[in-house]
């Protein structure tokens, strides 16, 4: 089956993005297709490279990055939601005159059209978070 994934909760505060990760990983392991993982609302915070969680805890961001690399997963942060919350890739940082970018490996910035497109392409669109 083709799944689209929307993550609308940030990391650590709620379990939603963990559950999204576990679902995505399990789906891929079982031979399903993930059309795209789209991060919206506070979900964009999953993509920050500046998080430094304690060593004895999971690192949600690097875990997503590794999954993306392993399965060539398309992970997209909504540009408008990301800009609001200070998630910038190098181009966006430069454009906004910021001296730092914080996009973790495997995450890309794109528009909300990618969310609609996932809804069109996927057999099921699953939303994790409020």
């Amino acid at each position, binding site marked *: 089956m083709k799944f689209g994934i929307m993550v609308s909760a940030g990391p650590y505060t709620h379990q939603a993005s963990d559950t999204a990760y576990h679902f995505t990983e399990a789906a891929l392991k079982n031979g399903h297709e993930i059309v795209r993982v789209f991060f919206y*609302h506070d979900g964009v915070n999953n993509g920050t490279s500046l998080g430094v969680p304690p060593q004895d805890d999971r690192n949600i961001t690097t875990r997503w990055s590794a999954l993306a690399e392993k399965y060539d997963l398309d992970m997209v942060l909504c540009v408008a939601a990301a800009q609001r919350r200070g998630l910038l890739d190098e181009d966006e940082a430069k454009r906004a005159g910021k001296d730092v970018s914080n996009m973790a490996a495997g995450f890309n910035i794109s528009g909300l059209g990618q969310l*609609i497109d996932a809804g*069109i392409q996927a057999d099921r669109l699953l939303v994790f978070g409020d």
Partner: protein
Amino acid sequence: MAVIKKFLYVNRKAPHGSIFALESLEVVLIGAAFDQEVALAFIDDGVYQLMRNQDTSGIGTKNFSATYKALGDYDISKIYVEKESLDLRGLSKDNLMPLTWEDEDDDWAEKDSIQVVSSTELAEIIDNQDVIFNF
């Protein structure tokens, strides 16, 4: 793209106090460019999103309520408001902004976009969708 799906955006939260209503509207407006069948539903505190005369000056946040009036220009003509949610809050359709669309097949007649429906009717509408976003 030949695939046309039915998209429903369910709005359940008050317009102010969280960003969900605003970021829902942003998805709706972008999604309108995709030539899909689009409908919006407002239930629970979400019905407050359509209130007339919103004024956010006291809380210093953006008043985006006028944007709902533009939905008709984006060919969005199906806006469902749950009757029970209105009743519970002592509201009626008169408390909501008038939202209209122009019917191309009826000499561009201006028509009401808002339909007040019961929760039972809304359940059927939800059941008929392909893609549902819940904000």
